[in-house]
C-alpha cells in the first residue's frame, strides 16, 4: 500500500484555469503538508494541516487553498492558474518525526 498518494501525477493546463490535486495518507499521521518544488529544486512549504486545522500558511497567493475533508486527506485547489505556478507539488505527512512524501504532481501551465 502506498503511504502517501497524490493524483494526478502530471497536470498540463492553460493559464486561467482552476485545478485540484488530491492527496491521501494511510499512515495515521496527524499533520499533512503541501510543498512546492521549483525548477531549481528548491522545496518551499505552502501549507501545514494538523487535525484538519490550518496551522501555517506561508506567503502563498490566496489562489491556492487547501481543503481537508478528513485527517487522511489534504487536497490543493488552485484558481486562475499562472505560468509561475508551474512546478512539482509534493504532499507530505508526519507524526513527530520524519516526513513521508507523496510521489509529486508535476504541474505545467501553458
Amino acid at each position, binding site marked *: 500500500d502506498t503511504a502517501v498518494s497524490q493524483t494526478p501525477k502530471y497536470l498540463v493546463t492553460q493559464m486561467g484555469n482552476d485545478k485540484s490535486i488530491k492527496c491521501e495518507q494511510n499512515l495515521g499521521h496527524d*499533520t499533512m503538508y503541501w510543498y512546492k518544488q521549483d525548477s531549481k529544486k528548491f*522545496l518551499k*512549504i505552502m501549507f*501545514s494541516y494538523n487535525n484538519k486545522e490550518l496551522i*501555517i500558511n506561508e506567503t502563498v497567493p490566496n489562489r491556492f487553498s487547501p481543503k481537508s475533508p478528513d485527517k487522511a486527506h489534504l487536497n490543493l485547489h488552485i484558481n486562475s492558474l499562472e505560468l509561475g505556478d508551474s512546478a512539482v507539488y509534493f504532499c507530505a505527512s508526519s507524526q513527530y518525526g*520524519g*516526513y513521508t*512524501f507523496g*510521489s509529486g504532481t508535476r504541474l505545467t501551465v501553458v
Partner: protein
Amino acid sequence: QQPVQSPQAVILREGEDAVINCSSSKALYSVHWYRQKHGEAPVFLMILLKGGEQKGHEKISASFNEKKQQSSLYLTASQLSYSGTYFCGTEREGGLGGGADGLTFGKGTHLIIQP
C-alpha cells in the same frame, strides 16, 4: 530563514567519503536529512533533535551541533545508490511544535557517485 547547505555539488568515486553541511542562523529544535533522486520524491534519512546527538544507519550518519546550529551528514564508503540531491530541513526552536511549523529546507547538495 532558509538553512545554508554546502557544498552545492560533490562528485566522488565509489568508495570515497563525503560530508554535507547545513547551518542555520536561527536556534533549531530539529534537523532532518532527506535524499531525492531525479524524478522522485524526497526520502527521509534521519532526524536529529536539539541535544547535539549523532545518529546513523549503515554507512550514513549525521551530527547536530546545537551551539553552532550546524548539522553534518557523513556518507562513508559511498555506493552508486547514494547518488542524488541531499536536503537538510530545519524546524526552529520556539515554534508551534509537533511538526506544525513544517520544515524549512536548504537548497540541496547534488551528489554524484562515479564507478
